[in-house]
């Protein structure tokens, strides 16, 4: 099967001339459907830059990126917007939400952008809010939430469009460990139940250990790209009691049902 994301000789240079800074250098990687990938490394090593490039939020200076086998550089802006809106979900390091709006309004923003009908929009957003266990806060203004709750709102917003790939930048970075665990469970539930590909930037080694794969970056270069198997898998299962694999017929059917009527 074709990798969902494939990067070849990717590099990113910030600035020009004397102040030019090589943030990413010759990145080669393939990410398969349903994989959970941790991007780890020290602060300033280029993790966020890599994630932004993979998520098509930023354009690499050189090299090639393919999404589902299609060259990213050839994508029309219309298609790019559809990708961002319908196939990707983002959880940003800082929460990035409209603090004057309610949880519900924040969560349904991607659906509003996609032009989903009002009724569907609200139903799907409430479902997503329920998934992150914030149903009782749906009508509360975002600014009145705690850090952990805000992060969960961001996850609800990231999954409300039923994305194929979820990008999360330090999703537990600002949280205490108990709240962090809740978030981690949420992410891996999505990975296991719905087959969502996870790309998580973190410097939390425990979180990285739960992933299928760990990519370590130092000074913009991939220094380690390893699969983590049997050793840490049980730990993931310890957190996540549900072990249903992602691509069973039931899972696919559920996904289809959820998709119906979503698009304009």
């Amino acid at each position, binding site marked *: 099967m074709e990798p969902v994301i494939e990067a070849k000789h990717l590099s990113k240079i910030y600035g020009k001339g004397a102040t030019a800074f090589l943030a990413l250098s010759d990145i080669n990687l393939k990410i398969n459907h349903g994989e959970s990938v941790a991007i780890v490394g020290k602060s300033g090593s280029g993790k966020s830059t890599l994630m932004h490039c993979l998520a098509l939020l930023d354009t690499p200076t050189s090299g090639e990126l393919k999404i589902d086998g299609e060259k990213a550089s050839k994508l029309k*802006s219309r298609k790019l*917007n*559809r990708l961002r809106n319908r196939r990707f979900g983002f959880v940003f390091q800082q929460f*990035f939400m409209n603090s004057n709006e309610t949880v519900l309004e924040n969560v349904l923003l*991607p659906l*509003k*952008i996609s*032009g989903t009908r009002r009724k569907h929009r609200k139903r799907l957003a409430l479902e997503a809010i329920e998934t992150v266990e914030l149903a009782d806060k749906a009508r509360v203004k975002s600014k009145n939430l705690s850090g952990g709750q805000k992060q969960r709102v961001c996850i609800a917003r990231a999954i409300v469009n039923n994305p194929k790939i979820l990008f999360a930048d330090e999703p537990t970075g600002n949280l205490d460990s108990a709240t962090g665990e809740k978030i981690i469970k949420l992410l891996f539930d999505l990975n296991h139940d719905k087959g969502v590909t996870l790309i998580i930037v973190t410097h939390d080694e425990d979180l990285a250990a739960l992933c299928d794969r760990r990519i370590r970056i130092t000074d913009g270069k991939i220094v380690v790209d390893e699969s983590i198997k049997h050793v840490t898998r049980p730990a993931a299962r310890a957190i996540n009691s549900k072990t249903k694999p992602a691509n069973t017929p039931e899972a696919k059917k559920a996904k289809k049902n959820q998709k119906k009527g979503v698009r304009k």
Partner: protein
Amino acid sequence: MKFTDILKSANVNLFRNKMRSFLTILAIFVGSFAIISVNAIHTGVNDFIDQQVESIGGDNYIEIAPTAAYDQLASMMGTGEITKYNANKSSSDATIISEEDLSKIRKIDGVISMNPYYQASVDYITTSHTDKKYNAVISLMPGGGVKADLSAGNQINSNSSDYEILISEDYAKKLGFDTPSDAVNQTATFGVKQSIKCYTVANPDDCIATLDAKIVGVQAPSILSIGGIRVNQAANDAIYNLASEGIAPDIKNRTPMATGEIDSTKLNEIRADLKKLGFTAITIDDEVGMIRTFFNVILIVFTIFGAIALIAAAIGIINTLLMSVQERTREIGLEKALGLSKGKIFLSFSIEAIMLGFWGSALGTAVAMILGFIANNIFHQSGGFLEKFPTFNLVKFTPESVAALILIVMFIAFIAGTMPARKAAKKDPIEALRYE
């Protein structure tokens, strides 16, 4: 994103910073208010002039004066040329229309009649219905189809040899008639001072002759037609002759002006012929044209003020939206990261600009219309300067001008909004999200 959602979010953003939006709208309001008010006054005045011109008629009426009179006026103002002396046409003769001139003018094709204009004046007017005498200013009612706006009676017959006059409603009341129609067909008596005779009598009252004329109609109040008392040619000439009794004819009959009737379809040819003979013609349209020009100049001046206010308001819109774009950098970045297209971000800010324009101009016209309505009412109240003109609305709004103004202001707002809107649309999502 659906259009209704874009509309909604633009509206929400507009009211997010209420004071700033309010001030921007206020600036647009001022400009729109000025322009629409001036336009409404202009429409009102022009409509009124049209209405009056319609009621006056007088397409065939013409007034002529020697072109030399205008030249002399110019030379007095220091702009004319100094010409050589000619015994046959000296400076003092140049501004006079002689009997010889008149017969030449009468021969011009299209000229139906032409009479020297004598400035007649009376000392008083009275009737048998009152024992009082009133000062009076009379004016010649020209022929050529000129009509007075009558509240009772008939038009004057200019060609009649009977002495016919029109009086105003105010005079009718003073002269002892309860209603205007009571005055119709009654006789009025003029007192006319005979200047030469006054040298020979001891009592000034003894040199005042009287002349009876028939009141054929009563004039309704009107701005364009001269109020007071209007007399036909026969009455005017009779009064003049009475007053100047004893004065040598060649002195008595000197006049700088003649009035007459023409075939208005030949106006241009007549003008050309008159010019050759050294005369300048003025029609009712010319006179109305001067009034119109006066109002047009006022309109243009105030419209320019309004336009300047709107330009300032447009800069206000740019400023407001630039601030808004700056404040919402992160929000825009997030929306772009979540797949909102450039076009829709541009649209959202453009709509915000258009809404500013809409509210400013809509409020401006609404307030102008309310104030215009109140002003019209005040002017029409007793004591108001339009008390006697119930049909004249000084301020008159047409749906077309209101719609045009609102649309134009919205368009200006849109143009002003394109710069900030482009800036917002071009924002890079990552840069925008990093923005602190």
